[in-house]
């Protein structure tokens, strides 16, 4: 488990086209654990993609990761991930497959979604929900935006943590 201020684990994961991605080399990186078939992840999805779009010019990277067990949950298969990307649902945000679930373990990811904001030195600066209400699009992922604004501004995000809300990560048995 990583705590606020600690260095976040690095990783190398493939996207739906097989291109590998790692966090870092950016003023901030958002590592977002998500999946294809969780109502909370889906409800928050557009808001998080909007963040990626709005902060791209500032150099912020957003990496979406699906760590769910695709054998027991076929809707989280790499093929289903590819379909969503090809439909334009990720608008350029890399959607990575964590087949071994090791990255989810390393981050101690709990739910989908579960948001981790890393600074330029890969230190964890925020962890939790995108905002306070999955039902309200007007919230615009404000927790995540505020955390990014703080990191980019050299401040500490406040709050630095919020409880992640969503479906449990689907671990292999």
């Amino acid at each position, binding site marked *: 488990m990583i705590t606020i201020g600690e260095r976040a684990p690095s990783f190398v994961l493939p996207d739906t086209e097989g291109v590998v991605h790692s966090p870092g080399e950016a003023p901030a990186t958002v590592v977002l654990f998500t999946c294809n078939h*969780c*109502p*909370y992840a*889906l*409800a928050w999805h557009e808001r998080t993609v909007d963040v990626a779009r709005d902060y791209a010019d500032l150099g912020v990277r957003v990496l979406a990761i699906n760590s769910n067990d695709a054998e027991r949950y076929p809707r989280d298969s790499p093929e289903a991930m590819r379909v969503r990307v090809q439909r334009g649902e990720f608008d350029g945000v890399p959607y990575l497959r964590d087949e071994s679930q090791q990255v989810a373990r390393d981050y101690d990811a709990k739910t989908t979604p579960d948001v981790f904001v890393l600074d330029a030195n890969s230190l964890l600066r925020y962890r939790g929900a995108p905002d306070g209400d*999955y039902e309200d699009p007007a919230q615009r992922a404000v927790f995540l935006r505020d955390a990014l604004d703080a990191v980019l501004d050299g401040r500490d995000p406040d709050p630095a943590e919020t409880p992640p809300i969503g*479906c449990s990560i689907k671990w292999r048995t």
Partner: protein
Amino acid sequence: MHVELLFWEGCPSHPQALAELRTTMVELGLDPAEVIVREISTEDEARRERFVGSPTIRVNGTDVRPPAPDEPWALTCRVYYRRDGRVSPTPDPQDLRDALRAARLDSAS
């Protein structure tokens, strides 16, 4: 009338679903204490109960939002769509009202 809510503990939406169901039952003059709440905790149970996800609400054995025929049984959160198109972890309250009203009419006739 037989109203039941089936849930899986790994999904956090069932307390909200139960509250919405009870509120709707009160609105319709039904006794909210009559809801039978049952936990589905194994894949075998999910298969036996034809449980496609949590929460599942049935009135007289019929799902208030019947799943697609090919929807797999699973210990997972269920994805609902509200009538305005929004994704939701719980069914649209109007679907609850319609199902409960229909069951009440059936029992009256």
